[in-house]
């Protein structure tokens, strides 16, 4: 698949025009951010948990070959089957082969960024197997034929009336109102029959435990439980970076993830299973260990920390660029600050040269990241790489043009300038300033910079 559909500046332009998207996103990011701050504030040891999370993930990456083999053995010992997929095509083929072996033409699927990333649904469709998305938001997107705008609330750009219309046109009749409870009920009714009769399910996973071969899915709606419990055959796609060393390590991540993600002390449902259990759950279990660019990211000594990411989406909610443009502008499965580094790291910076510029370097993402990924530093590192590899200033100028094109954005950028110098000074490797950074410095000359930080300003403004 192509890493990015359109250059970020162009797509962002369209998104900025869409008033509905903008106001929905603003409310969404603000609400989740407030909830997150509140529940994080309850824990006196949040910083210690973050440090443990970071260190555990660093250990996983440093010893990834050993942990992969340990996980493989543990899953096999528990009666599961392990497959290795070097790229998206191989992973999709495994799922298709399993479906064909069982004569399955329709399967249920629990939302997963990883399966979106590899384009699983389209590959299955081409192979004659239809995949039914079972998350409410994913269902809305699937039925409405569009793209996710947020990792956590992918259909946040659709309001209730639009959702009602999509449902009326597809799974419900004209009596359906736009009451959220009624809309949820409509999806429950539509999907229940499919859960109860499905012969195969596909899921992603949040964690894989090397020590025990245990797989962990964290969710809210219960569709994850349905998919991983009821159908007799289950295939789980697991990015190789999702491993954690031991069962006990879950005590760190099961605290970090829900609080950072939905701003809850714990998400409604967390499912853990190990291989096949004769009395409970699927009697055939496959796990696909997916590379698809992860080893590219691993080879980048600065960028590899992006693989710590537990996909909580906290960095999206605090990002001033993201909360204005929405996820679709990034043209990638992984939007926001993490997407701006992960996408070029996975696919090569030459395939997503504008993404590392889709940031103001304000540092808010680093502050909230539960596994302490230093996103600003990785962004700068990738900017340097992008400039090197492209040799085409037009691309980077496009990013600068977007940022400085509008009056309001220009004003915001002026305030950003003060902060931008900090990472610039740290980035010792960049000798010649690439155009957008040059633009930052130009802004600085226009007006003395305010003493207030961007974060302070942003916080006050919101």
């Amino acid at each position, binding site marked *: 698949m192509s890493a990015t559909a359109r250059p970020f500046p162009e797509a962002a332009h369209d998104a900025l025009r869409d008033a509905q998207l903008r106001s*929905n996103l603003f*409310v*969404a990011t603000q609400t989740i951010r407030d909830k997150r701050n509140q529940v994080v504030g309850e824990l006196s*040891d949040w910083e*210690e*948990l973050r440090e*443990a999370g970071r*260190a555990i993930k*660093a*250990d996983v*990456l*440093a010893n*990834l070959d050993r942990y*992969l*083999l340990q996980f493989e053995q543990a899953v096999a010992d*528990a009666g599961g089957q392990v497959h*290795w997929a*070097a790229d998206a095509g191989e992973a999709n*083929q*495994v799922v298709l082969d399993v479906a064909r072996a069982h004569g399955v033409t329709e399967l249920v699927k629990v939302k997963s960024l990883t399966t979106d990333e590899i384009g699983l649904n389209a590959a299955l469709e081409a192979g004659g197997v239809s995949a039914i998305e079972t998350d*409410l938001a994913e269902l809305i997107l699937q039925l409405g034929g569009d793209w996710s705008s947020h990792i956590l*609330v992918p*259909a*946040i750009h659709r*309001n209730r009336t639009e*959702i009602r219309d999509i449902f009326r046109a597809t799974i419900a009749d004209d009596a359906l109102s736009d009451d959220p409870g009624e*809309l949820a009920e409509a*999806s*429950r009714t539509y999907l229940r029959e499919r*859960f*109860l009769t499905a012969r195969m399910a596909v899921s992603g996973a949040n964690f894989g435990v090397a020590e025990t071969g*245990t797989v962990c899915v964290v969710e*809210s*709606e219960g569709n994850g*439980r*349905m998919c991983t*419990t*009821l159908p007799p055959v289950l295939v789980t796609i697991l990015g*190789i970076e999702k491993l954690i060393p031991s*069962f*006990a390590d*879950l*005590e*760190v991540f099961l*605290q970090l993830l829900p609080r950072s993600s939905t701003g*809850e*002390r*714990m998400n*409604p*449902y*967390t*499912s*853990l299973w*190990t291989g096949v259990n004769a009395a*409970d*759950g699927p009697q055939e279990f496959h796990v696909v260990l997916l590379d698809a660019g992860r*080893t590219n990211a*691993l*080879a980048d*000594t600065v960028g590899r920390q992006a693989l710590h990411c537990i996909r909580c989406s906290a960095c999206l909610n605090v990002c001033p660029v993201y909360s204005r443009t929405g996820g679709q502008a990034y043209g990638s499965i992984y939007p926001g600050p993490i997407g701006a580094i992960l996408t070029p790291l996975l696919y090569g910076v030459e395939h997503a040269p504008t993404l590392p510029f889709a940031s103001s370097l304000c540092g808010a993402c680093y502050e909230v990241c539960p596994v302490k990924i230093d996103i600003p530093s990785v962004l700068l590192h990738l900017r340097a790489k992008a400039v090197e590899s492209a040799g085409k200033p037009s691309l980077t100028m496009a990013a600068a043009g977007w940022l400085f094109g509008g009056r309001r954005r220009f004003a915001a950028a002026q305030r950003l300038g003060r902060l931008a110098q900090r990472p610039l000074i740290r980035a010792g490797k960049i000798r010649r300033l690439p155009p957008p950074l040059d633009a930052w410095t130009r802004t600085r000359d226009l007006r003395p910079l305010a003493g207030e930080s961007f974060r302070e300003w942003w916080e006050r403004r919101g």
Partner: protein
Amino acid sequence: MSGSRELILERVRRALADAPLAPESPRDYRRAGTLSPVARTELFYERVCDYRAEARRVRAGELPVAITEVFAARGAQRVCVPNDIASEWRVDGVNFVDDEELSWEELDHIDGVLTGCTLAIAETGTIVLSAGAGEGRRAITLIPDLHVCVIEERQIVETVPEAMTLLTELGAQRRPLTFISGPSATSDIELNRVEGVHGPRNLVVLIEESA
């Protein structure tokens, strides 16, 4: 793909050619809680209610009355139970259906389910099922729309690390585990929280005080 296994491992090793160090992970976070048993139960109760689940504190010995009331209040007549449930929980007036490999279809037509649990976490208001005694297989607490879960006060721990340690001590790591914190919910429509999408829409937690 067998070739891919070698290929990926080889790519990983090549990517790690700089031999990054990974010192022992620091674990300076809180492990054990500090609350008294009474305060711990109180916290669990509050946190469960916070998730809009119904929680009730039940005096020792009054559990059968509470069970009767909960099902009666909801008009639940046919209630699924794991075969090995405590006999005193099988109160009169409810038609208990033992889970003898009930089909999904049969479970879909049942009014509710009654189970115990392995432990509960006060700080997060979570109950943990591990397919242990009185808990049954995962499907029975998933398909019916009402889940009534009994928890004895002594099963409540304060922190998440305490829960994971206890699960390890019980040898439950490899058993199917479900952590439940409130009823199923979604916020996918304009961020409105809607209870109950696919899991049970009603969760009732009965906290039995220790004698």
